[in-house]
Structures are given as C-alpha cells and as structure tokens.
C-alpha cells in the first residue's frame, strides 16, 4: 500500500468519525439549546407568579379569536366524536344576569392556575403539578387518565383526550388517554413570549386580556389589579386563582 493510499484512508476514517460524532451529538446540542431557551441562563423562579387579568367590559360577544389562537398554537383539533368529547383549553362563556337589567357579559374561561389547585391535591400520581412560577401543568408521562382532577376542578377547565391525536405541535406534547388543560402557553413563556390567546386578543383590537407577573409590583398587571376592581371566580373556595376578571 502506498503512502498516498494510507493518507487517503486515514483522512476517510477521520472524516467518518467526525461525521458520526456530529450526527450523534447535534440533536443533543440542539435539545440543550431549546432547554436553555426559557429565560436565558435562568431556571423557573418562584419569585415570579404568572397571571392574567381579563377585562370583561372589553371582551366582545361573538369574538373567539383567543380560542382560535389557542387551538392553532397548541394544535388542538376538533375530535371525531361528540362536541363534549373534544378538548377545549379555553372557551368563551356568555353570561346573562338573571335579575335587574339582565346585563350581558362575555368572557374567556380556562385553567385558572390556582395557587392552591384542587387538581394537584387529588391527582394520585402527582402528574398534575404546579410549576415554581405558578403555572399548573399535567405531566403527560405519568398521567394515568383517572380523571379525578376533572371531577375536582371547580372551573371545568380540564379536558380528557378521548381519541388518537394527529398533527401535534412538537413543543406541546399531548396524548390519548391523558388529561390536559391550558398551560398559559408555557412553551412561549419559556421563550419570553406571552400566551397566544393574549396576543390574539390584542391583535383583534379588544385588548381584553393582560398577561404578566403578579408578583412584580412595577409590572402592568400588578398595577392594574391594585387600581381596578377585579374578582376571582369562585373566590369562596379560596384557591387564589392566577386569572382575575374585571367588570363582573
């Protein structure tokens, strides 16, 4: 074998090893990249409590842009079964006062991300959990689909995935047989963005939804909550929801 042939073979082996190494490590490097994309260099902090203020006086009857945006962001498609079997992470509720002037209201209802969430209390495996920043989530790897959390949620904010899923958003893993609910678009929050519903409400011109850190006294949401009258749905249960409503 000539010296030239030997050099060629060495170069080939070196290139192969390099290529194999790249193929093996690149996805990991990419994953690490995504994992760190939350708040640069910072893990989820308990100092933050994400919350939402919904101004029902600005929320328009018939507008469902927030619902559509949620479905698009989280790849929620209508199921093939009965409507009550489809997932609804956010829904519009139309209200009409039973007495007086029969005042009409329209508002979005979703997981209220309670500070004391009953769904977390009743979950037998700990699949329902509250993140340090107050976001209530379901770990789809350990949810056994017992639906006790759905029985316990006072807001009927949770859905059970009744059938096989298609066309999922890779950032929002869902699974047949598991329970799910609004995540405040946690994947967007970790990228430094707000929930899709809030963005859509702003784009529609209604500006009825405000998202932010309830613990940040300088933040807009904390300022608004301290200056305008807002209420918690089922405040009697003392769950301290992260979603507040104005104008009810």
């Amino acid at each position: 074998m000539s010296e030239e042939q030997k050099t060629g073979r060495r170069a080939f082996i070196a290139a192969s090893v390099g290529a194999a190494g790249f193929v093996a490590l690149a996805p990991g490097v990419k994953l690490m990249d995504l994992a760190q994309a939350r708040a640069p260099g910072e893990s989820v902090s308990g100092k933050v409590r994400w919350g939402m203020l919904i101004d029902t006086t600005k929320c328009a009857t018939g507008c469902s842009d927030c619902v559509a945006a949620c479905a698009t962001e989280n790849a929620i498609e209508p199921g093939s079964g009965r409507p009550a079997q489809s997932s609804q992470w956010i829904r519009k509720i139309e209200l009409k006062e039973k007495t007086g002037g029969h005042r009409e209201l329209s508002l979005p209802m979703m997981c209220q991300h309670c500070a004391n969430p009953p769904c977390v209390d009743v979950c037998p495996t700990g699949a329902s959990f509250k993140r340090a920043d107050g976001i209530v989530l379901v770990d789809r790897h350990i949810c056994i689909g017992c639906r006790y959390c759905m029985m316990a949620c006072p807001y009927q904010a949770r859905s059970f995935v009744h059938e096989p899923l298609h066309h999922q958003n890779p950032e929002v893993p869902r699974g047949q047989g598991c329970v799910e609910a609004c995540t405040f678009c946690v994947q967007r929050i970790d990228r430094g963005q707000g929930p899709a519903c809030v963005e859509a409400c702003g784009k529609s011109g209604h500006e009825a939804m405000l998202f932010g850190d309830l613990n940040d006294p300088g933040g807009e949401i904390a300022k608004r909550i301290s200056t305008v009258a807002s209420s918690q749905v089922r405040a009697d249960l003392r769950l301290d929801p992260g979603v507040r409503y104005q104008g009810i």
Partner: protein
Amino acid sequence: MAANIVYREIANKRTFWLLLALCGVFIAGGFWAHLTMEHHGHVITGMDNRIVWGLPHVFAVFLIVAASGALNVASTASVFGKSIYKPLAPLSGLLSVALLAGGLAVLVLDLGRSDRIIVAATRYNFKSIFAWNIFLYTGFFAIVGGYLWMMMERRMNAYAKPLGATAFIWRLVLTTGTGSIFGFLIAREAYQSAVMAPMFISFSLSYGTALYLLTLAAACAIDDRPLGDAVVRRLKNLLATFVAASLYFVAVFHLTNLYFTRNHGVENFILVDGGIFTALFWLGQVAIGSVLPLFLLLAPGVNRCRILLSCIAIVIGGFCQMYVTIIGGQAWPLDLFPGFAASSSFFDGEIHGYVPSLWETLLALGGVALAAAIVIVALKLLRFLPERMDDQTLDPSHSDARAQ
C-alpha cells in the same frame, strides 16, 4: 361444635363449569371492551368531558363498597364472638376479596392509560385520597388473605381473632376512603359533604350483607347443601338495621343540603326535577332499595324467600344509588357565576345527558363476572363452605333450645 363441621369443595361439576363458562363469556366481553376502548380511545363511550365517570365507575364503586360489607359475617364471628357465624366466615372473606378484585379491575381497565398502572403503583401523591385508596385496597387484600389463612388453617385459628379485628377496622377505613373520594370534591354541589363517608359505610354494610346472603344461598343450592333458617333469620335483623341506617344517612345528607339555600338547585334536580335521576332515586334507591326490603324483612311472617327477595331489592337499589350519586352529581352543572345564566361551547349552565355505550356496559358487567368467577373457582378448589349448614350443625344449642 365447630370441630365436627366438615368443609368441602363444590361437588357439582356440571353446574360449576356452566357458571364458570357464563362468567368467562362476560369476562371476555369486558376485556374486549377494554381493548377496544384502549385502541380507539374513550371517544367510543358515552363518557365525555362533562360526565367523566360513567357506568364502569357505578359498577366499580358498588363492588368496592359491597366488598367491605361482605366481610360482615366474618367480623361478626371473629370480632364480636358470635360462634354461629364462624363456619360461614371463610365465604365472607372470599366474597369480599372477590368483589374488591372485580371492582378494581373495572376501575383500572377504564383508565385512560391503564398500561401505566405501574406508575400508579410506584408514584404517590399522599395528599390524594385516590393514592390512600391504593394502599387501602392492596392492604385489604393482604389482611383478608391472611385472615382467611388463619381461619382455614386449623393450627392458625388462634390468630384469626386479632387479624379479624384488623380487617374490621381496615375495611371501615377503606369505605371511609371510598366515600371521601366524593366528599372531598369541594367544587361539586352534589358531593362535598362529610356525611359521604359514614353514608358509604352504611351502604357497604347493607350491600355487602345482601350480596353475601345471595351468594350463600346460591352456593348451597349448587350442591344441595342444607342451610338452616336460624342463621339466615339472624342475618335478616342485621340487614334490616343496615338498610335503615343507610336510609337515615341519605335523609340526613339531603336534608343538610336543603338547609343551605345555595344547594337548592341540585337538590331540586335530584329529588324533583331530574328525570332519570329523580326516578332512580325515589323508585330505585328509596322504594326498591330501602322501603321494600324493610317491609320484606320486618313484616310478620318473614321467610327465606322474602329475605332473599329483599337482598335482590337491596342490590338493585344499590346500583340505582351509585348511578344517582356518581352520574347525577356530574350531570348537574357547576355554578361558576352565581346570579348569571351561563352558556358556552363547553356546555356551561346545561344539565348534561349520559347514555352508556355497549363498551362501558360490557366492561362493567365484566367486573361483576370476574368477582363471581373468583368465588366460584375458589369454592371449587378450596374448602370454604361446610358440607352441612343446617341449624343443628351450625348452632346445636339453639336447635336444642327450640326443641325443648
């Protein structure tokens, strides 16, 4: 006395195989339903995001609650020292274990991810009453299993009493846990009551004793084994007390709910205006499940036929009660905005309908069949029942007294 009693396996092979085959058909049906639900998802069932627990849960909770009560006869023998029941105690333990196994099988096979049962067995959130129940159920199997061994192994008979007492306390805690599954649901007007736990205990005593008497009568009939009237008549007094206690707790539960104005809506729904739920409550739970058995058990001239009829009525009433409690409680909408009429794409403000599918029905019946099959196979393989259960054999002193 007890030393002269001979225990025997079931001798009637033909009936044994026939019953086992019948159970096998229903068990296969239940398993088929589970596999179909696993493949297609719960979309093929009548359950949805509003009625999240359906017919399988009605049957499962009934079986689990009855399992605890089926231990009554064994407890009466071991804990309260009534020797007449001692020969009948092993069947009591067997039935309770079988009913619990049947109920749990339905619960587990209805899970959205029943393949993750190992997760439920290894990860616990101890704030969850469900997680406690996992320990209570497995503990029940272990304790009653040991109790059966102590009762059936002559050398170990001396230890039957302490283990029987443990089983007695354990099953009261177990039924408290089962009732608390509903009692802890603060958001639902139809539940959220501390009365749920003692009410479920009284249900369990009543359903379990009724199922025990029916099983005992059936087991005796298979082999033409004589069964004395005295023991059945004694149990009927116990049964009547349990039925009356259940009715009392049901009355207390609804009356306390009626005291709170905010609960008038849901009470009106269950008691007056709830269609199928109102009918099942008054006709099924109260008339057939409580008043009729009380009349059959307490009116003069009671005989074995009337006692067994009352047991059937109690079981029918029990299923009606579970349907009203579990499905009726979910059918009533949550009131998120008091003073407002609500409507939404997710059926806020609406009373929810429920029609169980074939799959749920097959799964539910499969659980009953599994419980029955366990009892039948155990009776065939092991010596659970005495050869003779006439009054003379079970309680010679009682028979002598009557003869004099």
